[in-house]
């Protein structure tokens, strides 16, 4: 009898904290999103208009956020895979040094990393001049373009892509790859038919860990983008914190969450679910 209570006792503090400060707040936000009126005289009256207005007023920012995050995720995947592959199979004694390089950006503050990109892409910087010479910087600017925001997003979430892919590649039984070669698969065939499918859980986890924070981000758009690059996070932030238009902001947050859930659900159905829930214990 005592043993059956133990797990619940162990779970109690954490579960209570998550319920009270994560689940309950979502409920409060849902309620707030159906309010009407301004601060001080907010009234709950099932005001669904907040949602339709949010969609019609800010549809550009919504679409832009999903496009930026999508492009950044694909870019991060293309950058992450070769590095993760190298660390897992080719690094030898360099493995720990390379893993350190992957997590090193986390040791500097997120905002400062983004500001570093502002420095790198500043109008007269060498990088901007090179890009200008290549015709990739219209009118000599890189900052305040979609490219700058997407580059910032790609950079900031890249380690979240590399680490899960590395973890799943590292777990692959090398004998499977050897077997495919013994059976006369070319290097390319063995990669596409054995290595890549076996690393799929890592790719799925990595894309989710990159895409989800990227959609909601507003720091990169704030520092690296211009007025024309504002994402949905910027809108929510300014509605909440400067305009105090809470019902509209709450409705937008909920829509964002719902759209992400739908996107994730579709993606998981498509790509398999084992990666999201992590390894099942016991």
């Amino acid at each position, binding site marked *: 009898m005592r043993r059956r209570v*133990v*797990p*619940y006792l162990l779970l109690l*503090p*954490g*579960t209570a*904290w*998550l*319920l009270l*400060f*994560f*689940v309950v*707040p979502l409920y*409060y*936000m849902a*309620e*707030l999103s159906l309010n009407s009126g301004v601060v001080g005289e907010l009234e709950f009256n099932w005001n669904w208009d907040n949602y339709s207005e949010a969609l019609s007023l800010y549809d550009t920012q919504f679409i832009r956020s999903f496009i930026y995050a999508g492009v950044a995720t694909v870019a991060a995947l293309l950058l*992450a895979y*070769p*590095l993760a592959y*190298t*660390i897992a199979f*080719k690094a030898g004694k360099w493995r720990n040094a*390379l893993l350190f*390089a*992957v997590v*090193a950006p*986390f*040791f*500097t*503050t*997120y905002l*400062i*990393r983004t500001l*570093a*990109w502002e*420095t*790198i892409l*500043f109008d007269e910087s060498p990088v901007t001049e090179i890009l200008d010479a290549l015709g990739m910087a219209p009118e000599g600017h890189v900052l305040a373009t979609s490219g700058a925001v997407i580059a910032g997003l790609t*950079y900031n979430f*890249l*380690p979240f892509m590399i680490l899960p892919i590395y973890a799943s590649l590292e777990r692959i039984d090398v004998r499977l790859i050897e077997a495919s070669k013994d059976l006369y698969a070319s290097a390319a065939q063995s990669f596409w038919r054995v290595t890549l499918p076996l690393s799929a859980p890592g790719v799925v986890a990595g894309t989710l860990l990159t895409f*989800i*924070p990227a959609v*909601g*981000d*507003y720091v990169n758009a704030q*520092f690296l983008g211009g007025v024309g690059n504002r994402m949905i*996070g910027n809108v*929510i*932030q300014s509605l909440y914190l400067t305009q105090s238009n*809470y019902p509209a*902001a709450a409705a937008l*947050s909920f829509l964002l*969450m719902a759209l*992400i859930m739908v996107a*994730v659900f579709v993606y998981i159905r498509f790509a398999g679910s084992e990666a999201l*829930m*992590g390894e099942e214990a*016991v």
Partner: protein
Amino acid sequence: MRESGGARAWRWLREHAVVIAAGLVVLYLLIPIAVIFFFSFNDPQGRYNFTWQGFTLEHWGNAFGIEELTDALITSLKLAVLATVIATIVGTLMALALVRHNFFGRRLANFLIVIPMATPEVVMGAALLSFFLILGTFSLGFQTLLIAHVMFCISFVVVVVRSRLIGFDRNLEEAARDLGATSLQTFRLVTFPLILPGIFGAAMLSFALSIDDFVISNFNSGTTVTFPLYIFGAAQRGIPVEVNVIAMILFFFTVAAMGFATWQQRRAEKMASVRPEQEAGAGMPAGAPAAT
């Protein structure tokens, strides 16, 4: 038949394409850190630290000379330490329950832990702010920041400690019990020291997440200013070079802590591999009786 020089170079490139690409990605990861480092020695003439003007050590000497910035840093450190301690304890207990016990509602508990990690920060920040505003019992400030930071750290602690527990050789615990240890003794002398590196890693991750958090703090800070919030506020009027200096100090500090964690991990692995025929007690933590 001999290859021409060009063909050979081409073949070499093709063979090493993956490694070369990886090297470029590493460069891409590290360049901004180098930029932060070099610009901490910059001597900007105006308010903006965006172009290189000249070398100076002045800002390293004055690292803690800007009162507002130092206060923000102290607030961040306090917050991170408290949030880390609470989240690590609470999260470790949860991980123990999830790995060691089979009980009704386990899947639901797992789900509750995954879902905050799958929610964008802006939504979490906005939801918490809505909650605090409507409830009205908490005044926005240090306490609401602490609540928020513990909340988003818990899941990560659970994930890290859980993976350590899954790879745990339970024979070691059985051996302890066979040798007459009570379950509390077994936990204190065997289980806990062995999962300690995992707990330490989880604590470091919490600390890093907390000290780095901007978005959720931005929503729930009231008038309290943390280090990232200071940077955000200062960005409009020009960021002092001292911010780069402090960022680098934090960077080196974290690297040292990581080194320590790796060393701890190695020690625990050594300890787990001790067998009776080897020198008893080698690598055991101080105070633990040698297994005989």
